[in-house]
């Protein structure tokens, strides 16, 4: 188990589809012009248009592109969780996502390791609930 208390994001209308997806335990990505794009935007970065922007549910499978074991972070939610793993995960469908790798010995994590998404639901002080995607070693 990770004991990170994730500071919860504030969704904008551009990212609502993503965060609504995570609350259903789905990793929702955008695709247009044969490009998978993350982070989500209101437009496709290739055609600068919204009309053909498609949302799809990713498998949640990926590989670790790179990572670090954070031993020091004074920020609230992380100070007591050190050491924790911060990583970029290359998703099976394309694009890359920053996340934590949880439920493992941080020093067992390696570049290229296969991982699978899971969702950590937390409540924000304003009672809004958010689920944050993290990954576990497969």
């Amino acid at each position: 188990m990770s004991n990170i208390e994730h500071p919860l994001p504030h969704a904008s209308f551009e990212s609502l589809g993503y965060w609504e997806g995570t609350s259903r335990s789905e990793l929702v990505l955008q695709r247009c012009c044969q490009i998978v794009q993350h982070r989500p935007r209101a437009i496709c970065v290739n055609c600068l248009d919204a009309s053909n922007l498609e949302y799809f549910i990713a498998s949640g499978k990926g590989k670790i592109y790179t990572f670090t074991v954070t031993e020091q972070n004074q920020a609230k939610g992380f100070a007591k969780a050190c050491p924790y793993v911060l990583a970029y995960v290359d998703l099976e469908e394309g694009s890359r996502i920053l996340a934590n790798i949880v439920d493992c010995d941080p020093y067992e994590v390696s570049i290229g390791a296969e991982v699978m998404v899971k969702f950590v639901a937390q409540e924000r002080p304003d009672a809004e609930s958010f689920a944050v995607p993290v990954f576990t070693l497969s």
Partner: protein
Amino acid sequence: MTGNQFPNNIAIAGVYEHESRFSPDKTEFQIMAECAKGALDDSGLTLADVDGLFGASMTMGMMGIVDLAEYLNIRPTHIDGSNIGGSSFVSHVSHAAAAINAGLCDVALVLYGSTAASNAMAIGTGGSSGSRNPETAFTVPYGMTTVGSYAMYANLHMDKYGTTSEQLAEIAVTMRHHASLNPLAKMRSPITVDDVLSSRLISSPLHLLDCCIISDGGGAVIVTSLERARDLRSKPIQILGCGEAVQHQGVGDTDLLTIAAKQSGNQAFTMAGLSRADIDLAMIYDSFTITVLATLENLGFCKAGEGGNFVTDGNIGLNGTLPVNPDGGGLSSNHPGMRGIFLVIEAVKQLRGECGDRQLSNPETALAHGTGGTIGDKHSGATLILGVTQ
């Protein structure tokens, strides 16, 4: 502008590095004003001559450059408060050169001041405890620190090229040796590779001594026409080329190991009409040891993946083929939050031959490269190439 020759009529006429490393009794603007006086005295100009004002800081707000003009009680004809992180001041110098060349101002004053240390700012290992900014909604939940972002770059470089922690440590050891020759440097006691490796891990693979220090401080640079600079007090240092670039995560498809320095460096070298071998001194923003290695590779001083051997083969020492940061850099001399201005100041002082025990033997060309932001997330790069006048 890429590929064009830089206007050959602009020079740096004055520089000043604030001597303090801890100034709990001063404000940012006060430090900037003291630096302005230092650089004006260095050049022989006065505040009344300044008609271009450039500056940025960790705390200046949206109209901060206007606040600064009021504090100094000046009414310049050209202002530029652009803030692209620690590289801002390197880019301010090139913006100033362009503005002078275009006739928008005659004497540009570039300023930085900071009380990062006396305010006990946790610059590298904190500050991500929440944000309403949608730009950070995909990083803030995961606790990405500044050092963590650079550490992810380092791990990737190690995995791809076999770069080692010992090689990174050699950079910290070299910077500390340089600092030992700099009377103003904050950390002057020699260290060894073992000292770096046995210092505690902050974010793997980076140890405490792989990280820059935090200090107070500030600096000033005065840019004017070469013609005017020739009549002033100090030896003019000509601006030969410049470049700016950004690197970011795109749509999640970026090669993390390619940093902004690659684009900005190529542009600056093309403008200057110089090759890498022509550079006598490199001032490289050393927020972390890995930043130096990444920047040297991306600027083309060695091939991608060869940075580890380059820094351990003695190249970056004072007697090396490419001396890096003779002042001791941010790793050992000073790092008041945004370090770009000191890259320019030390380059100018070295080219003038004013650096005492750490003075290089008659350098004629210098490169300064600033990185702003973090190379594992998004960042700016600004490169300047400077030279003594003929």
